[in-house]
């Protein structure tokens, strides 16, 4: 089983600060960590490898600083890592991220399964996984809280949605985005930390991939972020309805109508 896990480096959540003047995220000296949902994806890949054998390859796109997160993933037990890194990829939105990622997966070749976290905790879009699936033209399972193999070519997944679950079955190759309910990521062990430095991290630029240069980076991004700001915390008015449910419904209706 050849599994690619796409990971993103995000600011450690308890070290994120918003500049009160500019409303922008302060990124200087902020510790970068693996997006927490992506750790669930790595864990699942490692469990599948433990069960079925194969290879776990980490794939990320970003500056050199992302090496540390790839190294962390290798210390969890992944076999090797690839970083797409070049000025040409800078400023990419989700579409211009998913495109080179999918081209890299094609270049790796023979990939049975692509795993990602359900979304990143910094941008929260959850779009890259579906975009990669569409570019690869393979089935996708989003919000997976349970995964198991029906046979070596078929994967059963349970999707946890708002107030409902949905069972799906896909034929490999497939792209799966996982929820934190799926598993508990393992710790890096002292031995795995040391061996992570013996595992390769290859850096690929736009020249290493078969790419349409107009579809990468900021120029290839149809969307742009205009402003990032912390939502204002406004005190909201709360009203206590009566304990009796029939009366409470009447009170609620009266308030909605008014």
């Amino acid at each position, binding site marked *: 089983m050849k599994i690619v896990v796409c990971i993103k480096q995000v600011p450690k959540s308890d070290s994120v600060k918003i500049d009160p003047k500019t409303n922008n995220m302060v990124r200087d000296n902020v510790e970068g960590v693996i997006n927490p949902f992506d750790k669930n994806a790595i864990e699942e890949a490692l469990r599948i490898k433990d069960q079925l054998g194969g290879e776990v390859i980490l794939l990320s796109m970003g500056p050199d600083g992302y090496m*540390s997160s790839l*190294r962390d993933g290798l210390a969890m037990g992944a076999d090797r890592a690839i970083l797409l890194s070049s000025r040409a990829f800078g400023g990419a939105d989700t579409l211009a991220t998913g495109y080179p990622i999918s081209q890299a997966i094609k270049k790796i070749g023979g990939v049975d399964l692509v795993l990602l976290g359900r979304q990143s905790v910094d941008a929260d879009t959850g779009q890259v996984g579906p975009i990669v699936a569409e570019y690869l033209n393979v089935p996708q399972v989003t919000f997976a809280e349970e995964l198991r193999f029906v046979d070596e070519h078929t994967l059963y997944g349970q999707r946890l949605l708002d107030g409902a679950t949905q069972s799906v079955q896909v034929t490999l190759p497939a792209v799966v985005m996982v929820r934190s309910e799926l598993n508990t990521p393992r710790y890096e*062990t002292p031995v*795995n*930390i*040391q061996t992570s430095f013996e595992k390769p991290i290859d850096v690929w630029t736009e020249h290493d991939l078969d790419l349409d240069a107009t579809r990468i980076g900021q120029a290839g991004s149809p969307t742009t972020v205009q402003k990032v700001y912390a939502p204002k915390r406004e005190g909201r008015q709360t009203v206590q309805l009566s304990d009796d449910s029939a009366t409470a419904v009447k009170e609620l209706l009266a308030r909605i109508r008014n």
Partner: protein
Amino acid sequence: MENQEKMAASMLHRMVREFTENELAPLDMEIDAQGDYPQGLFQKVIDNGLLTMTLPREYGGAGFSYDSVAKAIHLMAIGNASMAVTLEGHFKTLEQLLKYGDQRLKDEYLTSAAHRIFAFSQTESSGGSNPRGIATRAVKSGDDWIITGDKIMITNGGLAQVYCVLAKTEDDQMAVFVVDQDMPGFSFGKREDFIGLRGTPVGEIVMDHIKVPGYHLLGQIGQGLEIGNNAHDDARILMGAVLTGIMEHELQIAVDYSKQRKALDTPLYELQTIQEKISEIAIARQNTELLYQHAAQLKITGQSYAQVAAMAKSYGSRAAVRCGDMALQVLAGYGYSREYPIEHLIRDARAMEIAEGTVERMSGEIALKQVNQ
């Protein structure tokens, strides 16, 4: 290479911090109350490779330097000092096998050190700081040795499977042998009911004519005291680390409480008498960290470290007890309550005024070194 070592050490420390926060710190009070590790906890330590930190790569270990491991022990002790001391006992013993062990012995035993715990046993009922008075005997029998005697107050006694044992030969020479719990004639005695570090098992082993192969001798006959002292020195560095962790815990509790609690309308931390206590704890914590890190640096660079290691343990243990008392006073009534962990941190720290050589013995060693320089 140096940069890689730094990055690896930083990853190790983050891993230990996460493991401690998730797995150990939430059980800290329970471990103290129950006087043991909960079922399965020690297995988690093994499964996550924490016994391998100092073990060289060729034996299946991670091969981190002693200063990096000492820092990891420090971070673990912030969440639970008992488990940090259990690892200290294991690592100091591995150091002696590595330094003095026959290659055959290393190949046989160190390859199992990732999942078996090792302990060093010196103390007998005649006294811990008087090794020449021990009664354990090693009698030569062909290529083997026959070991007979009782050892008490062994850190990890009962938990460990492999023991380095200080014994006297027929011609009254001191020697250290490696004894396995699976050898015929080996049995466990009672576990001590200590007032602090209550998770760390401290117990007795009984050796009844145990036949030990010749290559289980560490170093040479007559080197026993040197090996025992070396084990003490290695342990004292890590004890300095444990004590730094305990003081960091004491400091956190005192600082957090001083921010929440008000005396009339003034937060406690604005009161000069409280500031004095907080600053004293912070200074003592910092001093102990500098001492154990310096001792570790001397060790890994091949310099004499016994003196500074003794200072780390001696200064650190007295300071951690005193700082615990100051933190308790910051919390006043709550500090005196078992609801807060300060009282058990004082009991934990108190153990290290005794273990691995009493502070009185440390004072003697430090003073004589100064006088004879």
